[in-house]
Each structure stands twice: as structure tokens, then as C-alpha cells.
């Protein structure tokens, strides 16, 4: 405790910014073998965004194919099936699951804790390289024969399809699963053991609560996926009948195994985005987050419920009506913590001092899109309406609102929020906001249309369709082009900042959590001395500084930082 010096952790400590993590060492190996969580986070980010581009190209291809019934740009339905399979598999396994925890979380989590690194830096590096190997397996599977099973790999189709890429890609999924498990383990231990003195559980930023809940799910659910794909490989290569009825197996068993992982997995995707959005609303409204404890508990509640609802993917699979009824009842329980969060975020805007920055635009977009995505989940959890809507575009629209409109939009919002911290550069706020609006409009044109398409009866994963559905498909495809333009503008905005962006101050938005107390970009060791922990949602002591072009902490205003102030046990009040 003697090391804590109230003057030394100042944002004005310019000596720190001359040597930062980007310039600390040079050369390929200094990145490839780095143990620095920030560099690993950046490498993950590059990998994830590259994969996002790949998955997005397949999305545009398949939307273009759907412009007309029958052949549009490919005459072979199998080609279309390969596209939608690749789109789904890339987006789920290579993009959304690692995007927030592994890319942004890796960068931000230790700094938010005021720590030097995660608990196991070598495991962290190993996790990244497992991700790379997993991604290579996906590329290998494209070279040796591709796969057209859908990202769900349902048997017996996946064990009997002629295309030869199934085994390589599920090996890839197996390896990616371990990458995810290792990141999760690392975060659980880091949050338990490396919190600085004074940071009790209820003084943690809500992003850390979300990452913690996510990490628990990653550690507990992903092994089931590993077992499932291993059994799939065994069945496909050796012919041991576990799932295929012609070998004495049961295809519904595969669905149980698969969704026992994949339902928690959708919360692995959305909960960290909720964590980011909690930060965005508080920081850009410069106001204490409303109902800290309810938001924190609801993250954990969602993590717990996520293990109990997998059967709602199987209402029509031949599962018994009794199980369907139980799973329907439990599925509604997820609606409650989600609703609590939405109301708390909205209330955080009340009596705030709202800056309409680019990250705030994304947070507001998230709030609207997640509300739509969450509410349409009600139609699907309800037994009788689900019978009609199951496996139609209504489901496609619903999960895109949650997986993309919420998880990806939250991730991009977080990327804009921490971009100055990661790169030391400010991007053009105007371009950033325009790009966000274009993405938001394009997204709604693309996916809201699909709700009607689905409720009108159009099944998903169709290469060809009845002419009466064409008008919806044309609108949806046009929306996807608008969205693509928006994302290209986003990419341009961020990349342009690297070359011509202004230097970022330590605290451009007026944040109060610890990452805004170290320089932008952070030095190799994050903090010269361990920073003092205040209330991360108390914005009263922040002042705008023209000289700094950012916010600074006015220490005299913060009772927590006045050396003699006694530490309160509950920081959230």
C-alpha cells in the first residue's frame, strides 16, 4: 500500500506515453510470442475483424443469390448451401464468440483491474494460437472439399454428406473450443486473484461482471461441444453409431448435446456485449450507472439460466411434449434479467449529461435492436406460436437482432470506445456517427423484413422460394447492401485514424474506470504504480481540459481519492 501515491498515477504523466506497448519491442516475434495481454488482444482483434470481413462477404453472396427465386448468381443449390454454412460457422466460431472476450476483453480486463497482465499470460498466448490453428482448419476444410451442413452440423446429414470438409472443420471447432475455454479460465482466475486492494466485487466495472459471467459459461459449456464434435468425428470416420439411426444411434441426442453448448454459447456472445453497453451508457452519459447491483446480478442470472433452456431449440424435434412444456416455461425466465437490464440502461440516461459520441450512438442502436431481438424471443418461447415460426425466417430475424444487432453492434461500440486507448489515435467522430446510422438503417431494412417473411411461412436455408416471397427478399438484400456500405465506412473511419487521426488523450470520453487513468496507448506495464481504486461510476470529479483535449480527474473533488478517506465496503452506492 505504500506504493500508492496520489500524484503519481496522474493522467498527465507524459513520460509513460513515450514508451507504449506498441513500441515497447519491435519485430515479428515480439508480437507472435508476446505475453502482453494488450498485444494478444490486438492480434485477436485483427483476426476477428478479418474473419468478420470473410463472413460478411458470404452474407452478401447469399443475400444476392436470394434476390430472385431459382438461380441468381449460382445455378447449384449446394454452392448456396456452402455459403450460408460458411457465413454461419465463421460468424459464430471465429467472430462473435472470441470478439468481445478474447479481443476487447483481453485488452481491457487487466487494465480495468489495475493489473499488469492476466493471471496466466502464457495460457493467453496459447489460446490465441489455438484460435489461429482453428481458423486454419476452417481454411483447410475449404481446400479439401468444403462443407454444407449448416453451422449446426445436424446429424445424420453431417455424417453422410458427400462434401469432404466436415471433419477438418469440426476439428477446427474442437480446437477453437479449447481456445475459448482457456480464455475463460484465465479471466475467472484473473478476476478472482488480481483485483487490486479496494476493488470489491461490487466495485468492479460492469464489463468485468459480464466477462466473469461469460467466462463461467465458456468453462462449463464448451467441453460439451468438444465431446459432441469428437463423437461426430468418430461416427463419420470410423462409423460408430452414436447419432445415425441406420447405425443404431439417435439424431435427437446430437441436438441435445449440441444445444447444451450452443444455447449457453448465444449468451457467451451477448452477455459481454451487455457489459460493454453498461460501460458505454454510464461513461457517455457521465452519470452513475442506474441499478448497478441489478445489472451485475442479471448477468449472472442469465449465465445460470442459459444452462437450463437448450430444449427450446428442439420443440419440434420429437422431444416429448412434457419436456417442451418445461423448457418453454424456463425459457421465459431469461426474459426477466434481460428486461431488467434494458430498463436500467434506459434509466441511466435519465438526468445524465449525455455526449452523443460514436460509442454512444452504438449504445443507443444496441438498446433499440436488443429490445426488438429480445421481445421477438417471446413469440419463439411460446409453445403454440413457435410451432408456426420454428425454422422460418422469423427465427433468422430474431437471432440476427440478438447476435448481430446486439452482440456485433455492442462489440463495434466497444471498439470505438476503446479505440483511442488501443491505438492512441482519435477517429473522425462525424464519420463514425454517420457509419453507425447507415449500419443501423441497413440492419433494420435487412432483418425486420425477415420477421414478416418468416411469419408468412418462408422456411430458412432455402436456395429457391415461392414467387410471393420475392418482394421481402429484394428489400432484405437491398438492406444488406446498405449495411455493407456502413461497415466499409466504419472500417475507413478507423483505419484513417491510424494515419491521420489526432493523438488521443488518456481520457477522451470522461470515463472513470482504471483504463482511463493510464496513457493512450498504455505503457507495457499498464501502470507505473498500482492505481488507487475509486468508484468507477462516480463522474463528479471529472473536468474537461482544453489543454489535454480530454477529461482529467480533479482529485480534490473525489473523497475516495483523498488519502485519508476510509474505504467503504460498498462502492456501488
Amino acid at each position, binding site marked *: 500500500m505504500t506504493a500508492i501515491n496520489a500524484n503519481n498515477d496522474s493522467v498527465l504523466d507524459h513520460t509513460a506515453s513515450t514508451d507504449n506497448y506498441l513500441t515497447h519491442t519491435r519485430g515479428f516475434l515480439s508480437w507472435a510470442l508476446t505475453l502482453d495481454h494488450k498485444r494478444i488482444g490486438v492480434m485477436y482483434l485483427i483476426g476477428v475483424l478479418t474473419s468478420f470481413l470473410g463472413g460478411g462477404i458470404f452474407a452478401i453472396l447469399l443475400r444476392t443469390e436470394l434476390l430472385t427465386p431459382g438461380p441468381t448468381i449460382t445455378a447449384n*443449390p*449446394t454452392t448456396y*448451401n456452402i455459403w450460408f454454412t460458411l457465413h454461419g460457422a465463421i460468424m459464430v466460431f471465429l467472430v462473435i464468440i472470441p470478439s468481445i472476450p478474447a479481443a476487447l476483453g483481453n485488452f481491457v480486463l487487466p487494465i480495468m483491474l489495475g493489473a499488469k497482465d492476466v493471471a496466466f499470460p502464457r495460457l493467453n498466448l496459447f489460446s490465441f494460437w489455438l484460435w489461429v490453428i482453428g481458423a486454419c482448419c476452417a481454411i483447410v476444410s475449404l481446400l479439401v472439399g468444403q462443407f*454444407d451442413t449448416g453451422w449446426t452440423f*445436424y446429424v445424420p*446429414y453431417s455424417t*453422410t*454428406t*458427400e462434401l469432404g470438409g466436415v471433419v477438418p472443420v469440426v476439428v477446427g471447432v474442437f480446437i477453437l473450443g479449447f481456445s475459448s475455454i482457456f480464455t475463460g479460465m484465465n479471466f475467472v482466475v484473473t478476476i478472482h486473484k488480481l483485483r487490486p486492494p479496494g476493488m470489491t466485487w461490487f466495485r468492479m466495472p460492469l464489463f468485468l461482471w459480464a466477462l466473469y459471467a461469460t467466462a463461467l459459461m465458456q468453462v462449463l459449456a464448451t467441453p460439451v461441444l468438444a465431446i459432441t464434435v469428437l463423437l461426430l468425428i468418430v461416427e463419420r470416420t470410423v462409423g460408430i453409431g452414436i447419432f445415425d439411426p*441406420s447405425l443404431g444411434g*439417435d*439424431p435427437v441426442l446430437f441436438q441435445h448435446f449440441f444445444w447444451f453448448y450452443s444455447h449457453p454459447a448465444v449468451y457467451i456472445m451477448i452477455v459481454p456485449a451487455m457489459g460493454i453497453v453498461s460501460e458505454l451508457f454510464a461513461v457517455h452519459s*457521465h452519470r452513475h450507472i*442506474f*441499478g448497478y*447491483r*441489478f445489472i451485475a446480478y442479471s448477468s449472472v442470472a442469465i449465465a445460470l439460466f442459459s444452462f437450463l433452456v437448450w430444449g427450446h431449440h428442439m420443440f*419440434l424435434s*420429437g422431444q416429448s*411434449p412434457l419436456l417442451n412444456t418445461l423448457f*418453454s*416455461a424456463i425459457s*421465459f*425466465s431469461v*426474459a426477466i434479467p434481460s*428486461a*431488467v437490464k*434494458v*430498463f436500467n440502461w*434506459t434509466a441511466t*440516461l*435519465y*438526468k*445524465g*449529461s*449525455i*455526449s*452523443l459520441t460514436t460509442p454512444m450512438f452504438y449504445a443507443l442502436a444496441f*438498446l*433499440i435492436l436488443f*429490445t426488438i431481438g429480445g*421481445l*421477438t424471443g*417471446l413469440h419463439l418461447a*411460446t*409453445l*403454440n*406460436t*413457435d*410451432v408456426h415460426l420454428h*425454422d422460418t425466417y422469423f427465427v433468422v430475424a430474431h437471432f440476427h437482432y440478438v447476435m448481430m444487432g446486439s452482440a456485433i453492434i455492442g462489440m463495434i461500440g466497444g471498439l470505438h470506445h476503446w479505440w483511442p486507448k488501443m491505438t492512441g489515435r482519435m477517429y473522425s467522430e462525424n464519420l463514425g456517427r454517420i457509419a453507425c446510422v447507415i449500419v443501423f438503417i441497413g440492419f433494420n431494412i435487412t432483418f425486420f423484413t425477415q420477421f*414478416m417473411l418468416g*411469419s*408468412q*411461412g418462408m*422456411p430458412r*436455408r*432455402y436456395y429457391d*422460394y415461392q414467387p410471393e416471397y420475392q418482394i421481402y427478399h429484394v428489400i432484405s438484400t437491398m438492406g444488406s447492401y446498405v449495411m455493407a456500405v456502413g461497415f466499409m465506412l466504419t472500417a475507413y473511419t478507423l483505419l484513417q485514424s491510424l494515419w491521420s487521426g489526432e493523438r488521443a488523450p488518456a481520457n477522451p470520453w470522461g470515463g472513470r474506470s482504471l483504463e482511463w487513468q493510464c496513457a493512450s496507448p498504455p505503457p507495457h506495464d499498464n501502470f507505473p504504480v498500482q492505481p488507487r481504486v475509486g468508484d468507477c461510476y462516480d463522474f*463528479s470529479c471529472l473536468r474537461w481540459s482544453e489543454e489535454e483535449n480530454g477529461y482529467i480527474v480533479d482529485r480534490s473533488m473525489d473523497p475516495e481519492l483523498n488519502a485519508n478517506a476510509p474505504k467503504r465496503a460498498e462502492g456501488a452506492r
Partner: protein
Amino acid sequence: MTVITLALGSALLAADPTPILGGDFWMPPPASTFAEGLDQMFMFINWLCYFFFALIAVLMVFFVIKYHAPKGHTFRMDGPHHHMPLELTWLVIPTLLVVPIFWLGFAGSRTLGVEGYVGLTTPPRNSYEIQAIAQKWSWSFKYPNGVISDDLYIPAGEPVRMQLRAVDVLHSFYVPNFRVKRDCVPGRYGYLWFQADEPTGHSRYHHLFCAEYCGNGHSQMNRRVFVLSRTDFDAWLKNEETWLEKIDDAELYWKAGPKLFARCTSCHTLDGVSGVGPSWKGIWDRVNGGAGSDGTFLDGKTYRDLIGPGKEFATPEDYIRDSILNPANHVVKPFSPSGMPTFKGQLDDRGIDALIGMMKHLDEFDPKTAKWLKATPEQK
């Protein structure tokens, strides 16, 4: 001659039925007894969604405008950190709302006009039973008297119980206008039921889709559902039972061939373009040692190695018959052994004879219009 033309004319009229479209902004036309009860539930949830979406959106926009503060502005610090009664309110209200939604979805309510899941999954005892067999990429509907059809025909005003199964991979039986769906799982029986009161006749139909992804022909696995009044249905069933027997042997391939071939069209073409399986064009030359008979199979043999006196198949007819009943036995390159399902139990010898006859006379058949080029079969 005129009789034949007339019969052909009415057959043409009947061959072009139109789908029943319409419905409202959200839902397709309701055509089963519980469709409206399910739409009612859908609209209840919709109104709830409209309300909560409007609440959140209006509050959000209002707060953002009202509490917008330019950069450098001093932060106001009077926003509450939490408010227990308010937070409990929005914990309890959603909880109280989802309970009736669940219950209505499960049990339904006669007073609110909602059909519940229990009703959807409990077929009446006196239901008329039809078996549906799904395979890549076709449906076979089997009626109590043994008739098999490609499109589904059901009697109007009676509960119909579908017994579902799949031969190869997962499929799903879905009729949007009836609001019914259920997966067809290989190795298991499934069932669903519905009752459609309004007859469609032979001129209009409801769409039937496969809703579970099953590969290349997934989106082609759509068929038609015809709802017939009981008398029409009985007449249709009687006709289906005997139509093949009633045809003269001389006219068998000419009349029955194209009708049976309709069940092959999702995989086989007549114009030389390969589908999931080889095109029928030139098939009789190939199996008879003519053009294309050096085409090879997956095991490296050619047509000539397989067919001929003293070989595995003494006559081309033997080979064709085996290909229909045991399709995985000999598979032509580059097609897949799992590409074609067996038609054992679905086609009898007379049906196979009709198809073989059609293969022999393909040069007289127009693949575009799916009609014979001549009005009567050639007498040989």
C-alpha cells in the same frame, strides 16, 4: 379422338392449380381449425411487443434530447444511483407478464380464442390417418387403402393425423396455412394433426414445405396440399387405387409413365442436364450398348461390363429395375451412393414397366411441356 382431346384438355386444366395466397400483414391465410387461435396468440404477443418497444424508444429519445450536454459542460450529479421500488417494479411486471404468456401458449384459452399447444398436439381419436415419408428430396403420402401420392390430399372437415417419418436425414413437415410443423426424424415416428374445413378442390392448393435443412434439394421439397370434400376425396382415392390397373397394357408407358416420372423430377431431368442424379436423356442407348455405354460406375465398371447375356444383368430392363429398387448397388460416376432412395414398396412391377416403357420412347416426349409429342402411342 375428340374424347381423348377433351380428357387431355381437362387434365391440362387440372394440372395448373394455383396456391392459396393472401392473409394479413403478418400471417398467411388461416386454413386449419386452429390457425386463427394461434394467430390470436401471435397478435397478443405482438401488442405487448409494440407497447414495450414504444416505451423504451420514446423514453430513450426523450432522455437523449432532454439530457444532452455538449462537450465540456459540467456534469449534473442529481441522477439517482438506484431506486429499489422502481427496480422491483420492472423485475416483477415482466415476471407477471410471462406467466400468462406461457400458460396461454401451453393450454390456450377458449374465452380469449387462443389455441394452446395441448390442443395442437392432441389429435382426436377419430382422426383420418395418413403416413408421410420424407426422403431426399420428396414426400410420399400413404393412405389407409395403400394409395401413395406425391402431393397431399386430405378430406375437408375431418381431423387428419399425419404419421411422420424420414428415410435418410432430418426433414420437417410444414404447412404454413395450417400453422403446423413437425420434424421427421429417421428411426422415429412423429405425428401431428390438423383439420381444414374449407375445400380447395383440385384447382387450388396450400403450400407444403420441408422446414429442416436436408441438403441440395431442400428448397425443392415443397409439395401441394389439396383439401377435398369427402365425396371428391373418396372419388380421388378410388381413382388412385385403380388408375394404374385400369390402363391398357398398350398404353401403359404413354399414360402412366409421365405421371410416375413426376416423382423423379426433383433429381432427374430429360434434357441432358445433370441434377442430383444423371439425366434420363439417352438412357436407353446407354444401357443398350449404344452411345454412352462406356460410361463408368464408381467401381470402375462400364454399362457394357454390367449388362448383357451372362453378365450381372441379362437385360437392360433388369438393370433399370435394380437401379430403382436398390439404387446404391451400382452408382454412375460422379453421382453419390446416398443420392437416391429406394422405391421398394412404392412402385410395383407395373409402375416400373411404365417407366421403362417411357425410357424407350423418350424421343417422342417433350421435356419442356412434359407431354408426348403425338396424341396416341405408337402401335408396334
